[in-house]
């Protein structure tokens, strides 16, 4: 031990806590008995140790009696450990020389027998004295912070987080796997409950992000791996080849004009077509074309290669290769969003086989002025204006037996919006909504729903739909009205399913790489559902948006700003303090067996194959001690909780 045989001078302060402790425990006796205990230099009792004079007493005695360790026998360490550590620090004592003996919560409050409680208190204090005898002065481990953030996901959540971090003056990299940022929100027509146009509010934000000097946008890119620890992450980003030089592309559309390959358009949910070389949508950011090599006919002149020929700007480069870009960041915001539950899973509703049974996002595209029909409501099969439209809520949600048990939260509102927008466009049309419950918790949400039912004469039927099938030109919808108990059969020209929100494609695999836990439904797990809703248990990772679970735009944006604020708080420090009660290696004892390596959940221990000893990354070590218990040689000893300390404490408790 560090004190090299030098005898420690320990001070013991027993708190009365008014009558909380003194009412049961004979505090004077405890202080008296401790006076003669080996190592104890000074022992006293005092009415309120945590009071100003109480703390002053500790401070004075440390100086007066040259104490090099103090025991405060009082309440639980969770309450005042910090208080007394600060007081001791003022007197020049290392805070790791302060120990709290818990004689209130774990003694006087639970054992009313005065004698028994007093005996127990003495033992508790003695065990802490034994610990203190071997305590070392420890300095917190300092780590630098790389003040640059990575945001994964370029939807509204990711963009908001990026803007908010960048506005605090820190650099941000946004990684988006699609060719353009914008996410799901850019596909929406109008947003509830205000009915303002989604594109109109999102595109300015998208442009702002590109123009922000602190933000680096990496679209058509994916995070390959992240290593390191909070403040010091190394990120590998895979940049997929676009085959078009973003800077040179003049957006003339000549390439797409000559491209002979037609494929379904993702932006319009496959309701229209695009070319193999394309711009996802006119306001795409970055404003550039992308050549989708999977759909391309061939770049060799013998196969096709037409687009390169017509590009005057010479922006097309068939030789572009996939790149791996490495970046260093200090924090990561995960905003990977959601996907819609697969319609194939709902066989009873046609399982994607009926063209006129749409999911919510497909209907958004039909309603959108930038959509395949220019905002005119027409059904995909024959372009006719549907006169009867059935909307089905909870399609795949709230069905623990067959699908997802959770409520997708936004469907009630967007179905009301869909039905309303449909009625605005087709005045003589009928809109029928099947629902289980209508949930309108949100600002102005219920008013919006009331407007749908009262002013817009949308028919709400409480019940589930059992089956949809085609009869000639119509869809027959079989359902039940549970309020009247009647079976309902409706002829519909079009059916819109409010499909459940579900985890985004590829997210569980990515989270496994990032060591961010996910729940049973595939949503990201927050550090604490109430008090730490935008943090991950994996330090340095912040979570926001629909990747955590179903939520609407304002909630996602609020979480984005919250995550950005958390990143700001982290970056405000130049150095991070890391608790020094880690488990280093006593190299003389270490045989390099590597057992502790497998015990460590943080990868803090590595085997140096040359020197045959374990090396410890003290920043990664969280100090759980699992390795210390596993080490067969006793080479892994936790600082200030060594085996020797535990043995002495056990002895004091059982024999003291």
């Amino acid at each position, binding site marked *: 031990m560090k004190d090299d045989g030098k005898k420690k001078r320990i001070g013991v302060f027993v708190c009365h806590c008014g009558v909380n402790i003194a009412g049961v425990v004979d505090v004077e006796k405890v202080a008296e008995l401790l006076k003669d205990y080996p190592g104890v230099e000074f022992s006293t009792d005092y009415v309120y140790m945590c009071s100003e004079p109480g703390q002053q007493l500790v401070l004075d005695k440390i100086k007066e009696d040259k104490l090099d360790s103090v025991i405060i026998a009082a309440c639980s360490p969770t309450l005042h450990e910090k208080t007394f550590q600060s007081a001791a620090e003022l007197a020049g004592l290392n805070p790791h020389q302060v120990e709290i003996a818990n004689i209130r919560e774990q003694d006087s409050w639970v054992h009313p027998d005065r004698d028994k409680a007093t005996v127990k208190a003495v033992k508790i204090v003695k065990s802490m004295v034994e610990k203190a005898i071997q305590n070392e002065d420890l300095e917190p481990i300092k780590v630098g912070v790389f003040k640059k953030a990575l945001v994964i996901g370029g939807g509204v959540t990711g963009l908001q987080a990026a803007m908010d971090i960048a506005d605090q003056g820190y650099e941000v990299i946004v990684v988006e796997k699609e060719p353009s940022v914008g996410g799901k929100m850019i596909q929406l027509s109008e947003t509830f409950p205000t009915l303002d146009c989604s594109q109109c509010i999102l595109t300015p934000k998208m442009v702002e992000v590109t123009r922000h000097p602190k933000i680096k946008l990496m679209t058509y890119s994916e995070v390959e791996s992240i290593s390191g620890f909070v403040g010091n992450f190394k990120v590998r980003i895979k940049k997929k080849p676009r085959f078009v030089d973003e800077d040179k592309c003049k957006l003339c559309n000549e390439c797409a004009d000559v491209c002979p390959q037609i494929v379904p358009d993702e932006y319009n949910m496959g309701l229209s077509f695009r070319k193999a070389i394309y711009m996802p949508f006119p306001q795409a950011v970055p404003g550039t074309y992308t050549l989708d090599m999977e759909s391309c006919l061939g770049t060799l002149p013998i196969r096709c290669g037409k687009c390169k020929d017509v590009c005057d700007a010479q922006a097309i480069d068939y030789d572009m290769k996939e790149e791996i870009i490495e970046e260093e960041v200090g924090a990561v915001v995960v905003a990977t969003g959601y996907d819609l539950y697969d319609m194939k899973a709902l*066989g009873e509703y046609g399982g994607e086989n009926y063209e006129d049974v749409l999911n919510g996002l497909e209907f958004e595209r039909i309603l959108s002025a930038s959509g395949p029909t220019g905002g005119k409501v027409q059904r995909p099969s024959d372009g006719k204006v549907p006169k009867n439209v059935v909307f089905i809520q909870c399609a795949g949600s709230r069905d623990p037996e067959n699908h997802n048990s959770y409520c997708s939260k936004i469907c009630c509102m967007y179905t009301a919006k869909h039905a309303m927008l449909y009625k605005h466009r087709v005045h003589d049309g009928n809109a029928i909504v099947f629902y289980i419950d209508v949930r309108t918790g949100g600002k102005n949400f219920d008013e919006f729903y009331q407007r749908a039912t009262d002013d817009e004469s949308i028919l709400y039927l409480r019940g589930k739909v059992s089956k949809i099938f*085609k*009869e000639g030109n119509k869809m*027959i919808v079989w359902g039940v009205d549970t309020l009247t108990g009647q079976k309902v059969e409706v002829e519909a020209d079009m059916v819109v399913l409010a499909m459940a929100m579900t985890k985004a494609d590829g997210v569980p695999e990515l989270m496994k790489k990032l060591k961010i836990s996910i729940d049973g439904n595939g949503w990201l797990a927050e550090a604490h559902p109430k008090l730490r809703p935008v943090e991950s248990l994996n330090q340095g990772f912040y979570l926001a948006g629909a990747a955590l679970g179903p939520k609407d735009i304002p909630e996602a944006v609020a979480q984005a700003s919250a995550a950005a604020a958390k990143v700001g708080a982290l970056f405000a420090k130049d150095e991070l303090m890391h608790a020094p009660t880690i488990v280093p290696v006593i190299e003389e004892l270490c045989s390099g067996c590597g057992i502790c390596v497998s015990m460590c959940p943080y990868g803090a221990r590595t085997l140096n194959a040359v020197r045959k000893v374990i090396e410890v990354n003290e920043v990664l070590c969280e100090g759980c001690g699992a390795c210390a218990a596993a080490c067969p040689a006793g080479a892994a000893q936790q600082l200030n909780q060594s085996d020797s300390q535990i043995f002495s404490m056990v002895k004091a408790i059982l024999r003291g």
Partner: protein
Amino acid sequence: MRVHYYPGCTLKEKATNLEDSTREAMARLDTDLVEPEGWTCCGAEYPLITEKIHGLIPPVRILRQVEIEEGSKVVTTCAFCFAVLKRANKAMLDNPTLHTRVNEYLADDILIDPTTKEKRTHFESYNGDVQVLHLLEYLRDEVGLGHLKSLVKRDLSHIKVAPYYGCRLLRPQKEVAIDDPETPTIFEDFLNAIGCTVVDFPFKQECCGSYLSASMPETSNEPSYRVLNSAKMNGANVVALSCPLCYYNMDTRQDRIKEEYLEFNGFPVLYFTQLLAWALGADVETLGLDKHLCDPRPLFDIKQNAEDVEVNL
């Protein structure tokens, strides 16, 4: 190949065309069908009664006899028997209380010893180890649809078949289903393998009226009519099924349907085994086509003589 086969009582009485065509087809697949000794009715009402023990005794007795005869599988064609046997078997596997009680009841039962043909009274308890298979499953998993296709002797492409699953092959999902209950394909895959033209129609899983034809006959007309009409509207020229009760409702009772729906002028209904046997080259006489109320024979007319029109596929 030798496999245990539970025909059920209906096949021996009303649905002899299902029984005969099954035997004909399986003989052509070189499969020996072995009926468990002393089999009884499966207790068709098991799904309907609340006192489970009584409903379980007959099917478990049959399954136990299969086990005594060292069978590991039992094949059925009747969808109702299939569902009863499979549910009973599952109950024996999953429900320890039922398992104990049913075995207690059966402890003093008398069964026929397969070797000595003598009556035996002491048996080990039955633990749900026999696998219950519908013939469609057997064809898919044991024979193999690819192999089946290679054995087809006749061209059936002019027969546009609407495959009708009914309820018993698919529900209750967790106890019975031989395929996804919402989007099943096993019947279609089978029909494709024997060369029929498959017609998809939305009523393939809807109810035929079931037992209502006995208790409330007027009510069961509508569901049966809807199924037949939907098949017809979607371009089928025959409905194929595997359940004698569905067959009774949809073929035997077609006169009643005609009385209620004047525009309906009959629609042929076949057991899938009749198509199977025919595809494998069976003589038309073996199929029991004369038993049908709506005569399906025109569909088989063109190529009545198997040897003459054998096609090489």
